[in-house]
């Protein structure tokens, strides 16, 4: 039975697409047949982050409208086996995603995939609601910053009330917190919300902490999910996150300041 996971946040720019790309890649690397779907109709970007923008022929809306079949639209990742990408449409018609249409496509995907990762657009409009409606589990991506935490709390409320599981009285969507762009030094100094602060406010289990990292921008420049950047801190953190999602009990890394040598403290940047 396939599991549908939404990657959501409410606020934009917190790392949903980065997380979707790396999470899906990580699942596929570990041998699971995985598809990642871009729900951001009109503002397609997952294809760029995954580095397959030039291979897009048909998209999600084409399938919903019956203009193409799934096999024509799914893009097979060239680096990782078992990984497919379903790009969003660039149409400006926001009504293109219908509940029936999305349901039909997801059901078809369930036949051939074990994990279906839904990359939600920002906001709480149709695209975001469609992305979370069918979810079994949710990765709530949050930055340690007031507006992001508040919006995440709103999204948790929507998951608990407007998902299909909520409507049908099924067990609730399983929530996971992904705290991205975390800077342990700043939290330690008291000028950034700490992991504990965010956990206390949102009250959902922590799946992973992704440190603020230059590698994230560099890998998006290159169209490579950051989890594939071996040895990078953000990539390692995503690797841990995927393992934890699959049930491994791993300690959280990158949540305490790294010890710096004397000279680095004097001359390096804080």
């Amino acid at each position, binding site marked *: 039975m396939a599991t549908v996971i939404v990657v959501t946040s409410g606020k934009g720019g917190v790392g949903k697409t980065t997380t979707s790309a790396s999470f899906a890649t990580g699942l596929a690397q570990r041998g699971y047949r995985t598809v990642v779907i871009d729900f951001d109709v009109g503002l397609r970007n997952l294809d760029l982050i995954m580095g397959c923008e030039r291979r897009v022929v048909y998209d999600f809306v084409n399938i919903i409208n019956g203009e193409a079949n799934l096999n024509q639209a799914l893009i097979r990742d060239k680096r990782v086996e078992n990984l497919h990408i379903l790009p969003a449409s660039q149409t400006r018609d926001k009504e293109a995603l219908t509940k029936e249409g999305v349901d039909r496509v997801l059901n078809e995907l369930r036949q051939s995939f074990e994990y279906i990762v839904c990359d939600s657009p920002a906001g709480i409009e149709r695209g975001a609601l469609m992305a979370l409606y069918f979810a079994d589990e949710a990765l709530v991506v949050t930055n340690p910053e*007031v507006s992001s935490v*508040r919006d995440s709390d709103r999204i*948790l409320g929507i998951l608990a009330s407007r998902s299909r599981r909520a409507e049908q009285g099924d067990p609730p969507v399983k929530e996971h917190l992904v705290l991205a762009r975390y800077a342990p030094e700043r*939290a330690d100094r*008291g000028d950034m*919300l700490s992991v504990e602060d965010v956990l206390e406010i949102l*009250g959902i289990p922590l799946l992973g902490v992704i440190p603020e990292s230059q590698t994230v921008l560099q890998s998006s420049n290159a169209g490579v999910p950051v989890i594939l950047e071996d040895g990078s801190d953000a990539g390692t953190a995503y690797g841990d996150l995927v393992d934890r999602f699959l049930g491994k009990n791993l300690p959280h890394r990158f949540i305490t300041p790294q010890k710096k040598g*004397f000279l680095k403290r004097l001359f390096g940047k804080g």
Partner: protein
Amino acid sequence: MGLFENFFRSSPHKSAALAKERLQIIVAHERGSGRRGSPDYLPALKKELLEVVRKYVPVDQSQIKVHLDREGGYEVLELNITLPDEEPRSRRNPESLPGPGQG
């Protein structure tokens, strides 16, 4: 080491504490009917209120009822404390049935 850090860094602003406080307030306020039927602070609130009342009047755990309601855009916190029947000190109310505790 600590000395060095203090020397080179400006004094901490602790703005994170402010952020947390503001968030806790706004999030508690915005958690509407959607999430978690009753807020998780209710049991603790009930316990503490009971302790305060007990300083003055002996009341039983079961004699306090805290209820949170939402009416329109407002949240109504309803507090019912049943005071024990005691020897009449002043005029005794003929209906000394459950009445609202006086704050």
